């Protein structure tokens, strides 16, 4: 059974249960049929014919643990050994290889990847053979990763849901994002069934980013 069919059945049962408490049996069945008609007929036709994006009443059930499903058929924007993402496509160039995010994080040269942006984007894919754990962002879109790191940075600066530790000139922030943002990959993550990650670790020197990645806690 396809994922959409499963979701439709779940939606119908949920509506039937909710409506059944307040409405007559006939009205509850009518409401369920209307919902199914919307999902299967009206929404696709309206979107195809008029190019509008109607709200979906199906909710994707993201697994609590394990890698998130990424849209099939959509070309992956994740970097690989042979294809890096240009930082200038999502960050503002400040010259001399320095790029700045909307929240003011500066991504400079450095790390084993040669640039901090590339280093962070290495966390947009799993490295199953990597020793220990390797935090992986659910969304491998570079703009989404930058936005998520920005959000964590702003929470860290505000001292909200953040554990901060000083390491010389550096600050190491562990920020609770209050939602799933990725999963724990690498060798040890795989052994534990790729647990969901709800935190982001940020290592900063003032506004310069050293690394950022998802972690469990």
């Amino acid at each position, binding site marked *: 059974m396809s994922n959409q069919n499963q979701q439709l059945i779940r939606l119908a049962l949920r509506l039937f249960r909710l409506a059944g408490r307040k409405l007559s049996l006939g009205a509850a069945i009518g409401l369920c049929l209307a919902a199914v008609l919307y999902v299967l007929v009206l929404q696709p036709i309206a979107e195809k014919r008029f190019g509008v994006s109607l709200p979906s009443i199906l909710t994707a059930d993201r697994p609590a643990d394990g890698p998130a499903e990424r849209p099939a058929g959509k070309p992956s924007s994740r970097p690989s050994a042979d294809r890096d993402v240009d930082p200038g496509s999502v960050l503002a160039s400040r010259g001399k290889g320095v790029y700045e995010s909307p929240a003011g994080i500066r991504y400079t040269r450095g790390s*084993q990847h040669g640039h901090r942006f590339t280093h962070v984007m290495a966390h947009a894919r799993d490295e199953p053979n990597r020793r220990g754990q390797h935090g992986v962002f659910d969304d491998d879109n570079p703009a989404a990763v930058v936005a998520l790191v920005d959000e964590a940075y702003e929470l860290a600066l505000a001292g909200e849901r953040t554990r901060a530790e000083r390491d010389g000139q550096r600050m190491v922030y562990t920020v609770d994002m209050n939602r799933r943002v990725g999963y724990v990959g690498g060798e040890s993550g795989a052994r534990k069934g790729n647990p969901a990650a709800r935190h982001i670790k940020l*290592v900063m020197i003032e506004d310069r980013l*050293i690394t950022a990645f998802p*972690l469990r806690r």
Partner: protein
Amino acid sequence: MFSIGICPTCDAGVLGLRKCGVCRRVVVLCDECDAAWIDHRVEARGTRGNETMPCPGCQADLWSGGATWATLAEIEATSWCAGPDVTLTESEPFEPRR
């Protein structure tokens, strides 16, 4: 590459054994948060990277200038690596792209 554990600073990076291209010392290097130590005592201060990764022995960049992951022979020739506190693990190396 050979490593001796997980970085206590970021709790994620592998503590790899890196041979400096200038002073030729085998040092400990976290490949995630760019922190390095002169030997396995990672509770000591060490050096921290920014645009370069200074060797804790001579300040030369550990990501360039001829630095490499240490071979088993180079590790065996390093006195502190032979201590009982050091447990070596071999894993896939990542060659820096600089």
